[in-house]
Each structure stands twice: as structure tokens, then as C-alpha cells.
């Protein structure tokens, strides 16, 4: 396990360094003048030059890169050109909303994925219909799912809200986690809890749909293979009920590929967050990143990219650990 941890830490460092290099190269490829954009069109050339010097844009790129790495190592990700706040502070403001959405979407994806896979493994007419739905569902882009969901559940049925994280007039609890579902429960505020839950449903479902389908397909295939194994036949011959065999033996042994797929899908889920947060006005990192891109706010873009990259590596590490727990053979690899 220590070796696995060591490998993941090295991978994390490599991924973050790679992401930083890419974002810095983008600054070179895309010609822009963030200093002028920041001080405004009417600012004097002296004011623009002073701002460029203050931001370090007057220095050669390698020197800027080295300076950035040095500061980033101490947690200083520079100030956002748009919000003027330290990027680290902005990330602290926006990350909880994204974390809450990503957690909800991940849980939903796992539940839907496992549920669909079990239904497929059970066979019959339902399985055939579900298989058709999976193929169709996987081919629908996320933004279209979002739009249809808003049209149906918000505009048509008036059942769920279309934007935001909570009803705008509610006073939000200032809890320790900044996750509204958790903090509202801790504060004993059912109004905020149900409002937050309602606002979470559509964006979480939109994000969860494609990962859930991918997990379901992988798990179903894996289950089909596992359910033909000798030890399953032995279990049946001992008179164990089919559901017990499926859950206790089948699911555990078939989980490996589905967990790998889940880890990979988490990366896609993070990418989808940018679009989903934009459509649902979800005040998270995706929305922050989107607005920062429109302003060529490279400190903010770099900071957000690093945070999302870290999340991706950490989640995949967790997947490795979960796989090792599910299948002891992996621990020795």
C-alpha cells in the first residue's frame, strides 16, 4: 500500500507540473494583454506598464514559470485578474459548491450504475429495454440532457429549480464544511436542506447520467463473465439464492473493471462540470473557470486547473485502494 501511495504522489506531482506547463504555454500561444484588460482601456501606458510589472508579465516566460512554481509551492497562486482576490481564496469560495455537486453526482452515478447493471444481469425483457436505453443515453451530450431536464422539470412541470444552489431568499448556514446539505443538517435547518437538495437534483443527474451508463455497461459485462465462473456454479449447487450469489460473490469479483471505469469517468465528470455549472448557474469551480477563461485570467485558470487535476489524481488513487480492497490479488501487483 505504501508503494501504491508513493507511486500516486509521484504521479500527482507529474500531472500538476504537466498541467502548469500546458497552461503557461497557452499564455504564449494566445496573444492577450491581461495587464491592460485589468486596468482598463483608458488607463495610461504608464499605469499598464506598472500593472504588468506588478504582475510579473514584463519578465521572460521561464522566469515567470519559475516564480509561479516557487509561489505555488507555498500555496500562493497569485491574484485573480478579474476578481482581484487571491486565487487560493477564490478557490476556497467556489470549491465547496463543486465538491457537493461532484459528490452527489458520483453517488448518483454509482447507485444508478450498479442498479442498472444488476437489472441487466437479471436478464429478461427489462434488461433488453435497459440495454437500448444505455446505448441511447450514452450518445446524448450533457448539455442537451441539461436543457431537456430544465424544460421538463422546471419549465414544464414546475417541479425543480433551474438555477442556483439554493433559494435566493434563504439565509445560508455558515457551517464547517460549506456543503449546504451537511451544514443545513448540522444547523437543523430543513428549509435550506430541502432547497439545496432540490437545486442539486437536475445538475447532479445531468452529470451522473453518462458515468452511470458507462459503469453499468462495464459492470454488467463483468458480472456476466463472473456469473459463469466455477465458484458461482459451486455456490448455486450448494443451494444459495441467486440474489445472494449475485451480491455476495458476483458483485465483489466483478467490481474491479467498474471501479476503474468509475475513476476514469470521474475525469469526464469534472470536465462536464464546466458546462453543467454554466447552464444551471451553479456557483462552483466550473462557473469560475468559465468566467476566468473569458477574461484570460490565467492565474485563476491555472489555479482551477491544478485543483481539478489534483482531485482527479486523488480520486483515482482512492479507486486503486478500493480495487485493492475488493480484490486482494491487486495488493501484490
Amino acid at each position, binding site marked *: 500500500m505504501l508503494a501504491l501511495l508513493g507511486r500516486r504522489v509521484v504521479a500527482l506531482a507529474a500531472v500538476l507540473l504537466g498541467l502548469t506547463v500546458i497552461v503557461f504555454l497557452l499564455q504564449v500561444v494566445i496573444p492577450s494583454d491581461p495587464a491592460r484588460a485589468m486596468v482598463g482601456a*483608458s488607463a*495610461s501606458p504608464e499605469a499598464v506598464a506598472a500593472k504588468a510589472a506588478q504582475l510579473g508579465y514584463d519578465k521572460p516566460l521561464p522566469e515567470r514559470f519559475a516564480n509561479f512554481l516557487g509561489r505555488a509551492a507555498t500555496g500562493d497562486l497569485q491574484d485573480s485578474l478579474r476578481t482581484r482576490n487571491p486565487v487560493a481564496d477564490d478557490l476556497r469560495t467556489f470549491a465547496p459548491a463543486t465538491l457537493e455537486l461532484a459528490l452527489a453526482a458520483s453517488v448518483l452515478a454509482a447507485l444508478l450504475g450498479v442498479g442498472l447493471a444488476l437489472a441487466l444481469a437479471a436478464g429478461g425483457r427489462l434488461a433488453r429495454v435497459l440495454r437500448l436505453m444505455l446505448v441511447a443515453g450514452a450518445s446524448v451530450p450533457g448539455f442537451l440532457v441539461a436543457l431537456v431536464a430544465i424544460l421538463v422539470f422546471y419549465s414544464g412541470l414546475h417541479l425543480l429549480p433551474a438555477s442556483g*444552489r439554493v433559494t435566493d431568499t434563504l439565509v445560508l448556514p455558515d457551517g464547517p464544511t460549506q456543503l449546504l446539505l451537511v451544514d443545513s443538517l448540522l444547523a437543523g435547518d430543513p428549509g435550506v436542506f430541502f432547497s439545496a437538495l432540490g437545486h442539486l437534483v437536475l445538475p447532479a443527474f445531468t452529470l451522473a447520467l453518462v458515468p452511470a451508463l458507462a459503469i453499468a455497461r462495464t459492470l454488467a459485462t463483468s458480472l456476466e463473465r463472473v456469473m459463469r465462473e466455477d465458484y458461482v456454479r459451486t455456490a448455486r449447487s450448494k443451494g444459495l439464492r441467486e440474489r445472494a450469489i449475485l451480491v455476495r460473490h458476483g458483485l465483489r469479483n466483478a467490481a474491479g473493471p467498474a471501479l476503474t471505469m468509475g475513476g476514469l469517468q470521474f475525469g469526464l465528470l469534472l470536465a462536464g462540470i464546466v458546462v453543467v455549472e454554466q447552464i444551471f448557474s451553479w456557483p462552483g469551480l466550473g462557473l469560475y473557470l468559465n*468566467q476566468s477563461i*473569458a477574461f484570460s485570467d490565467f492565474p485563476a485558470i491555472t489555479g482551477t486547473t491544478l485543483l481539478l487535476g489534483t482531485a482527479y489524481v486523488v480520486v483515482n488513487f482512492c479507486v486503486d485502494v478500493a480495487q485493492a480492497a475488493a480484490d486482494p490479488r491487486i495488493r501484490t501487483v
Partner: protein
Amino acid sequence: MTRWLSVALAVLGIALAGCGSTQKKGATGGDTLRIPYLADMSVPDPDVFYDVEGNAVILNQYEGLLKYAPDSTKIVGSLARSWSVSPDRLTYTFRLRPDVRFHGGAPLTAQAVKRAFERRLDVDQAPAYMLKPIKSMSTPDRLTFVVKLKSPVNPFEAYMASSWGPKIIGPDAIVTHKGKDFGQTWLRTHGDGTGPYKLTAFDRGRQYTLTRNDEYWGQKANFKRVLIKITPDIGTQRLELQNGDLDAVLHSFPASELASLPSNLKVQRADSFLRLLLYVNTNKPPFDDPAVRAGLRSAFDVDELVRQAYSTTATKSVGAYPEAILPDQPELPYAADPAKASAAAAKAKTKKITFAYTSDESGVQRRAGELLQTRLKPAGFEVTLKEVQLPQVYGYLKNLKSAPDLLLMTNTPDAAHPDTWARILFSSTGGLNFLGYSDNALDKDLDAALDAPPAKATALYQQVGRRLIDSNSLFFLGDVKDVFVLNNDLTGVQHVPAYPWTVAYAPLKRVSG
């Protein structure tokens, strides 16, 4: 399996019913006004803020010494009850209203005004240019503020009335929370103005809350609270407005959908100074050749372009300046002549041109760009169209040879004065002169106009406009209107053409029936 599925569906149904109980009917109504923003504003600090999205947060919270009267370019007193200008146009004396208090409770005094002006100069961001001509400031008594200029500045009163002009910030920010950055950190999430609304919450990315200032010296606001919600998707804004969860969408509503609004919504159009411009890169082939540029203007029918792209939300420009800010302007000589355009294009050193347009949520600039592309093709140009962001546009001056050949975007002057348009857009060093057109004679005229006697200044601005038109370095295509889509029960819209995308929130009210 079926039993589990049934249980799951039942739980989901109960949860949805609980969560959605407030969604049965629109949230609007009562004493809260709900307005969406497409993006977060940069910062709610009047000495730093220099954008358009966010104007309303500044202007409903802070006041300057002067302002524009509704639907006009007439300058009237705001925090200044009256003002006078010395015959040599160097000394401005402002007499302040006696009954004004800042949101923090401190009274408005001449000393507070002086402190606010000094802060703008200390912060030294883009809006500071309006105070750079000041030589000295004095406060002969508690309610008199005197400014002496280094030399006459014709647009000085317009600066004072500008949307981005100096706003009087109270001592809470400038003294109590001054810190090491003149209160900039505090003012990123707080405010201390004198306006009809106070900033009571600034949740970046989510919403800003303005609360009625019950101590306001002027007409009290009708709505107790204004919630400005960050809703980045115009489609979502439209649905929420339609469903009654928003009261109004104040900009970027798709022009093509205005004709088919549902019966619970109404539209109001108001003149603004926002203009659709086509920049020409005169620093490289093919448009470094004046003859090719002259042919370019014959390639398109401006009237048709504006009508097709903007429908009823813009009109064809008639001069180099917005019509209301300069009288007797030279007319624009734009007329479609495909044969002339083809003949000029035939002489071009290269037919391949890059055409950039700035992105906008409503997509209208993309549509205008596509229409222009289709008009340039028959003339013989091979046009590559690309969308760019504003900071990229700022970067063009660094290397004009690699900048696009044509650039389509909208801009607005800082105030209703020709100098605030020409200096920033036409002069060689103008901040909005993105493709670096340069004309020394034009620059000289512009400099001469700044302190010239008013009649002579007007003639000089007209001459500058004529030179610019003749250069074909910048085409003035359309005057874009401010379009407000409102719930039927919302009335009292007050708008100033020089304050784009902005309405005064205080006079807005809801009427029943």
C-alpha cells in the same frame, strides 16, 4: 428487484415533492426585485470598476457630484446641489446637498468628497484618468468643494456625470478600512455610498443583495431589496423570466425572440451609445492600401446588415459619433456597390483575410460577422471568421502584423461628450484603438479640441470625425439599443443613454393587475 425499484421511485417522488414545493409558482412578487447578470462583475469598487456588467450595482449604490437626467444628455446635479465654472474654465465650485448621509452613517461633507477624489487618484486604475487634469482641490467650507484644473478640459463636467466618473465613497471604506490598499480589499465585498440602495451581501458567483437605504435623501426606492443573480446562460434567464422567477432581463435578450414573447412579458427599448464597429487593420496588406479600404466599404449594405443582425434592436449609424453627443456631424458615405468592391479587391495584395469578432452571449456579433463574411466573399475576399475574447483584443497592439485584418465589436463612450468617444477610439494612443490606426493630424486636432472654446471644439470634433470616416480605418455600423424585457407588472423604468445596460432600481415598482 421490482420491489426495490418501487421503493426507490417512491422515495424519489417524495423528495422531489418536498424540494419542489416552492417551484409551483414563480418566486417574483412582493418587495424583492430579481435581476440576472450573465457574469460576475469584476469588483464593486467605483475606482476600479470599468466594465459594463455591474454598472447598475455601482450606480444604484454610489452617487457622483453630477449625473445625466433620464433619457437625455443633460447634466444635472446629483450630490452637488449646484455648481459653477469660472470664466477661464479652470475652477469648478460644487455646492453640496446638506442632508446626505453615507450608508455607514457619516454625513456628506466637502472633506469627504475631497478624500474620495484623492482615493481615485491613489488607486490609479482606468477611471482615474478623469481626475488627472486636476491641479488642486480645496474645501472652503463644510459643503463647498472647489476643483482647480491645470488647463481647461471641455469634457470635465461630462466626466463628473459619467457612469465611471468619480463616485463619492464614504469614510467606512476610505478611513476605517483603508488598510494598505486604500480600502480596495474591503470594497471588494462591501460598500459605503450615498445611493438609494446599500450593498448588503456580495456572494461572488451566486448573487449580490442590495437593500433599500431608508435614510436616502432623494426619492426612496420602492423595492425593499434587489437580488442580482448570476445566471450565465441567457436561455436559463429567459425561462426564469417567463416562469416568473425573475422580474427583468436588462440586456442580451435574443433579438429574434422579442417578437414572440409570452403575454406575461413586455419589452422596452431605449437609446444607448453602444455602437457596432468594424475595425480595419491598416498596418498590413491588404488594408494598408487606402484604395482597398475604400472598396471594402462598398462591399456591404449597412442598413441590411443591421436589420438582419439586430432586427429592431439597433439602427444604422449616421455619424462617427453617437448622434446625441455631437451636432451637425458629417454623414457616413456608406453605400453598397458590389462592382466597386470587386474592383478594389482585385488590386489587393492578398485576398485571404482574418475576421475576428468578440464573443457575446446573445450571439448577435457572430451573426453580424457571418453576414459580413457572406458579403465579402462575392467581392473576392477569402474570409476566415474567428471569435475572440476581449483580453485577446487588447493584445493585438503588441504585434499588429499578426492581428486580424478586420475586427467587429461594440463599444460605448465613457460619457455623453465627443471627447470621451474620439480620444479613446480614434487617437493613436487611444485605449480602444485596438488595431493601431494612426493619424498625426487627427491627434493634433483632438488635443486642440480638449481645451478649445466650446464652439471651436465642436468644429474640431467634427473635423476629427470627417478625417476618421475618410480614412476607412473604422466603420460605424449600428447604434445598438438597450433592450429591457420585463414582467408586465413592473413599471417605472428610468434609463440614461450614457449608462449602458443600466436602469435606476429606485423608481421601479410593481403594479397589480
